[in-house]
């Protein structure tokens, strides 16, 4: 479980986050949604520890990331995996070397054990046999899956995904969403996904927080999204003219 407690963030005179409090639950796909510029990425970066909040706390179960010691943060990092919007795969390394990197850095496993673990992770994301390829030699969707494989290689307890569907076609997006949800359930991970993709919201949104202009505008489950009367939620969900026309037609 990860708990954001009254998070505020200011850049100069601009207040980007205004007292966000939210609990991201273990074993569930927790979604941070909102329009571009709402403060989603800043919140995610604060949660993962890449940015310091101006005020507030971030609790990883019973450890407060904001005032944790260096040693505590170091140990915590080993329990965190992250999938980046641009994948952040190391171009000069093969797929196998990319996935092995955290193991090379932090474990004393033998070469064979590492290779076995790499193969297991690749198998889990349905990409067996591409070990020797370079990131530039595979498609964007495959790169996302490799990113997931690298994020889960050390069996993390917390998984962060920044816009996992950006730049992907709807079909591949669904595959990625399903994969993240399955991994979350299998390992009881606290998964936090930053997205503005409505398909993802309606498919895997088990615990959703909507950020609007730096404020928590709504929270709930995917089943409540279409029924809730919240104005901000309505504006966000029905922003697409196509969807609006469809609803009007049904009405």
């Amino acid at each position, binding site marked *: 479980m990860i708990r954001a407690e009254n998070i505020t963030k200011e850049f100069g005179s601009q207040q980007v986050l205004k007292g966000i409090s939210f609990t991201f639950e273990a074993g569930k796909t927790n979604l941070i949604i909102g329009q571009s510029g709402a403060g989603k990425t800043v919140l995610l970066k604060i949660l993962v520890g890449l940015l310091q909040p101006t005020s507030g706390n971030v609790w990883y179960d019973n450890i407060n990331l904001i005032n944790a010691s260096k040693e505590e943060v170091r140990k915590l990092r080993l329990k965190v*995996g992250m999938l980046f919007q641009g994948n952040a795969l190391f171009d000069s390394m093969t797929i196998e070397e990319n996935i092995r990197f955290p193991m090379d850095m932090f474990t004393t496993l033998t070469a064979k054990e590492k290779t076995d673990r790499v193969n297991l992770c690749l198998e889990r994301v349905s990409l067996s046999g591409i070990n020797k390829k370079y990131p530039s030699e595979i498609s964007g969707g495959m790169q996302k899956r490799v990113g997931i494989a690298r994020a889960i290689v050390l069996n993390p307890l917390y998984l962060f995904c920044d816009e996992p569907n950006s730049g992907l076609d709807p079909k591949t997006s669904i595959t990625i969403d399903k994969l993240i949800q399955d991994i979350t359930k299998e390992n009881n991970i606290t998964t936090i996904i930053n997205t503005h993709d409505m398909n993802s919201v309606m498919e895997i949104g088990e615990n959703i927080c909507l950020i609007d202009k730096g404020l928590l505008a709504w929270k709930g489950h995917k089943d409540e999204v279409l029924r809730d009367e919240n104005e901000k939620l309505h504006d966000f969900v029905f922003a697409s003219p196509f969807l609006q026309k469809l609803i009007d037609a049904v009405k």
Partner: protein
Amino acid sequence: MLDIKLFYHFGSFVLWQKQIFSRPENGRMYYKETIRQMYDIGIGSLAIVFLISIFIGAVTAVQFSYQMEGTLVPPYYIGYIVRDMTIIELAPTITSLVLAGKVGSNMAAEIGGMRQKEHIDAMEIMGVNTSAFLVMPRLIAAVLMVPVLVCAAAFIGIMGAYIASVPTGLFSSADFIKGVRSFFDSYNVFMMLVKAFVFGYILTAVSCYQGYFVKGGSIELGAASTRAVVYSNILILLADYIIALVLTA
């Protein structure tokens, strides 16, 4: 405004050194990275160092020979002057200035590119001390390989002087060799190595700093790469002067 920025970057640079020299997470990975960097800096720069040194030696010999013509200075002095100029000044300084352009800009661009593609963030989240992992191997590799390159440059420079002057009849082989072997002071070699060590550190640390803290897109990355070369060159020349003052006092 410029002063404030200068102090900000100086303070930030000094504080950053502490992070660079913190305990490695995995010595083996750092060792592998250091060897890779040593290869890149050392072998990768050998050709350009060879080319530049041979011409610098050649030009020095030809010009001194021109200046000494018709004077009472014995011809073998040219060998002596070329040797000491190369060892004390030309080999360490010119080689380091060239390396700042070749190796420094490459480091700034490489690390800056990693920053922009979120590679550094990805490593941070894994728990890697990126300042240490990305910079320490480069610094160690540079302070080990730059002195080696400078020694090679000094040797090649003297050879260049020989090749440019003896076969063309500016002076005899015996004169040149006598000059090169006259008044040799090993302290000059020590001075050359001190310079090479300090310059290697400056060009790497300054370039990595520019790359590591880059913000923005490709234009900013280009600007950071340029700053890496310009600031390295200025600091190398400043350090050259300070070392000369201190070691010859």
